[in-house]
């Protein structure tokens, strides 16, 4: 497998505080990779630097063979990276279908002036339906997104990110606020995404989900990477157990 | 030439201290309550008119005092009637924007209905006797303006640094939720903020009125000056507002003296646009994140 995404000595400082400290991550093409760590470990900051929402203080990000450090998010989307956000982030006043259409922005070839003169090209309805079906949202297409139940809103977020047609999908705490059944169904969704040759990098607190779905896991603490490995390796790693459960649990 | 320069510097510092007052009011309402008050100019206008009405019976200085009391009431009304309903639910930055814009139009046109469009002259016993100090001409009114502005600025700074509610204001500005956990009545802090902000604007109006005319439209220019200063100094930045006010006053006076009096007012906007282009966080501000 080839490396799709890598960071080199990625660092973020705010004032005197170093939120992310020389972190090296790699994400193999086709894998589901997890980024975990206790709250405040710097996961979301790292995520924001990778996805272009935050410019790193130093270090670099490489994606699909080119350096993308500090590129604006819309440029990264063009290169095949899309993401979800920690707090539910949808277009609340648009319908579910319109949310997907906005997600397909880059796939619709229709410059501004053609909007005014030429025929408005019909949208690729098959693609829309496919995404809606994948996230089990097909029967909600005409509903205003803001009035969906919470679980459906979280699914819609993923649907929007998939509509971009990414090679790499970044999921920021996709299971936050989901009940256990919903979280387990999310495992199925992520597997399906993986089957479609989309690489996934996820930040998540729900360990059951992380252990169940990831091929590889990176662990951050205090802005530094403290471990990397398969779920089994991570679960057995004394340093990780100490971080999560406190001292003395490793040999319990 | 040197005399002209010095004279314009003095004139500039006098006006600059007024601009600083205006900008301080705008800056605390933005810094603490996240509201850009587009009716701030009308508060200035009301301060001048209140003084005009009160001075006719009680004389100028008592008139200024009465006007200040009136401004407290106006500030509280603005917060309770207009801004408080907008804080319910999710507060967007925009709703208070447009709401204060509407308030600005209402106040301006109410003033017009009451006083008519023609300018009034507010007379002050200090406005007519120039004093010559080291060859520079100033009126007592100028000295009063600079003195009161300086005193008000100092008092405000002191209050915010040392006062019990000044501390509360800073806490709310930084983190509203945690401030609530400390037992700070957030609504009280907002009321205080807008009362203070209105007093600062009204005081500026009351002080400048004897130097210029009073009409229902003077607020528009006052708002723009205040906003230019606030952009110059950095939004929500108190030392920035003071420094920005003085910079604007001096640049305008020098511009009027050496370039063109007609475009004196354009200098502020030109400065503002330059700052927006090259240093949007303001001269004294910290670097901000790209959008």
């Amino acid at each position, binding site marked *: 497998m080839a490396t799709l995404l890598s960071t080199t000595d990625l660092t973020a400082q705010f*004032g*005197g505080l170093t939120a992310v400290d020389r972190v090296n991550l790699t994400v193999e093409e086709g894998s589901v990779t997890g980024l975990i760590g*206790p*709250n*405040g*470990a710097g996961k979301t900051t790292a995520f924001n630097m990778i996805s272009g929402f935050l410019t790193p203080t130093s270090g670099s990000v490489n994606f699909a063979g080119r350096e993308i450090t500090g590129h604006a998010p819309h440029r990264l989307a063009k290169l095949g990276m899309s993401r979800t956000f920690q707090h539910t982030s949808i277009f609340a006043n648009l319908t579910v279908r319109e949310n997907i259409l906005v997600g397909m922005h880059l796939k619709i070839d229709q410059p501004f002036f053609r909007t005014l003169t030429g025929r408005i090209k019909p949208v690729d309805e098959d693609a829309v339906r496919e995404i809606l079906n994948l996230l089990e949202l097909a029967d909600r297409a005409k509903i205003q997104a803001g009035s*969906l*139940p*919470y679980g459906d*809103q979280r699914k819609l977020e993923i649907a929007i990110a998939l509509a971009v047609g990414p090679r790499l999908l970044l999921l920021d*705490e996709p299971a*936050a*606020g*989901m*009940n*256990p059944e919903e979280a387990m169904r999310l495992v199925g969704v992520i597997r399906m995404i993986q089957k479609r040759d989309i690489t996934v990098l996820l930040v998540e*607190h*729900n*360990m*059951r*989900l*992380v*252990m*169940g779905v990831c091929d590889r896991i990176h662990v951050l603490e*205090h802005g530094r990477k403290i471990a990397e490995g398969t779920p089994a390796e991570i*679960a057995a790693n004394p340093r990780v*157990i100490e971080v*999560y*459960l*406190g*001292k*003395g*649990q490793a040999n*319990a | 030439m040197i005399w002209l320069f010095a004279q314009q510097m003095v004139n500039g510092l006098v006006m600059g201290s007024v601009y600083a007052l205006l900008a301080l009011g705008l800056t605390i309402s933005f810094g603490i309550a996240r509201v850009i008050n587009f009716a701030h100019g009308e508060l200035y206008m009301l301060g001048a008119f209140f003084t005009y009405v009160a001075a006719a019976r009680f004389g100028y200085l008592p008139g200024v005092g009465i006007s200040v009391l009136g401004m407290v009431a106006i500030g509280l009304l603005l917060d309770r009637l207009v801004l408080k309903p907008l804080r319910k639910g999710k507060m967007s930055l925009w709703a208070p924007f447009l709401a204060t814009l509407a308030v600005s139009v209402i106040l301006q046109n109410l003033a017009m209905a009451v006083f008519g469009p023609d300018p009034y002259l507010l007379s002050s016993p200090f406005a007519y006797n120039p004093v010559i100090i080291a060859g520079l001409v100033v009126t007592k009114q100028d000295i009063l303006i600079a003195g009161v502005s300086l005193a008000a600025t100092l008092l405000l700074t002191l209050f915010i640094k040392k006062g*019990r509610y000044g*501390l*509360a204001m*800073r*806490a709310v500005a*930084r*983190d509203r*939720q*945690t*401030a*609530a*956990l*400390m*037992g*700070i*009545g957030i609504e009280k802090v907002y009321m205080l903020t807008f009362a203070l902000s209105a007093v600062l604007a009204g005081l500026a109006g009351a002080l400048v009125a004897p130097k210029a005319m009073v009409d229902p439209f003077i607020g528009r220019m006052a708002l723009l000056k205040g906003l230019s200063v606030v952009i110059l100094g950095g939004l929500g930045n108190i030392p920035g507002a003071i420094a920005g006010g003085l910079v604007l006053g001096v640049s305008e006076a020098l511009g009027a003296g050496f370039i063109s009096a007609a475009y004196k007012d354009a200098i502020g906007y030109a400065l503002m646009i330059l700052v927006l282009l090259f240093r949007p966080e303001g001269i004294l501000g910290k670097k901000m994140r790209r959008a």
Partner: protein
Amino acid sequence: MLEVKNLDVYYGPHRALEGFNLSVKEGEIVALVGANGAGKSTLLKVVSGLIRPRSGEIHFADRRVDGLAADAVLRAGIVHVPEGRRVFSDLTVEENLLIGAFSRRDSEIRQDAERIYEYFPVLKERRGQFAGSLSGGEQQMLAIGRGLMGRPKLMMLDEPLLGLAPVMVEKVAEIIQSLNRMGISVLLAEQNITVALGVAHRGYVVETGRITMEGEAGALAADPQVRQAYLGI
């Protein structure tokens, strides 16, 4: 002392707490453990009056306190030290302490501040510095000190160990126990099971807005199921 009955809390359409029951008795340290996003912070915020519950009741010292504003809850004797410490970074250490006593009108505020400096000498050294310049552990001490300035009967601590270096974790754990010895009851919301259940008398395990286990702290610490709920193994 604190009695939470049948609490339901919603964020918009999303249910954050469901049929939540919990109690803290006088003089007790109670640990509320569970993964991130389980609802621990939400419970604390509801108790301290930042969030309104949809249904259920909260009683404190024989008074009903649900629906009260944050300052009224504080005056009733409950102090909430929020997650992430949330010290006011551009206020000085001293100002942070003073603001913790904002709800008080008595004349002993200064004395209390001195007592806290005695207790946390590091803070005394830095009393004039901006709180933002303190290290994580020092900020946590400041947050606790600030909370003490409100003279609480019950102190609720939200993730006080988060992101602290191991030495600091032990130090803060000791502080929690000594608070308790001063006669303050403690509700401790924490991810770090070992420390939390180590200092607490009783504990509750929260998963996705529901309490799934409760009991004596030692017994919970020994229960393999708790560990499983955490690591997903």
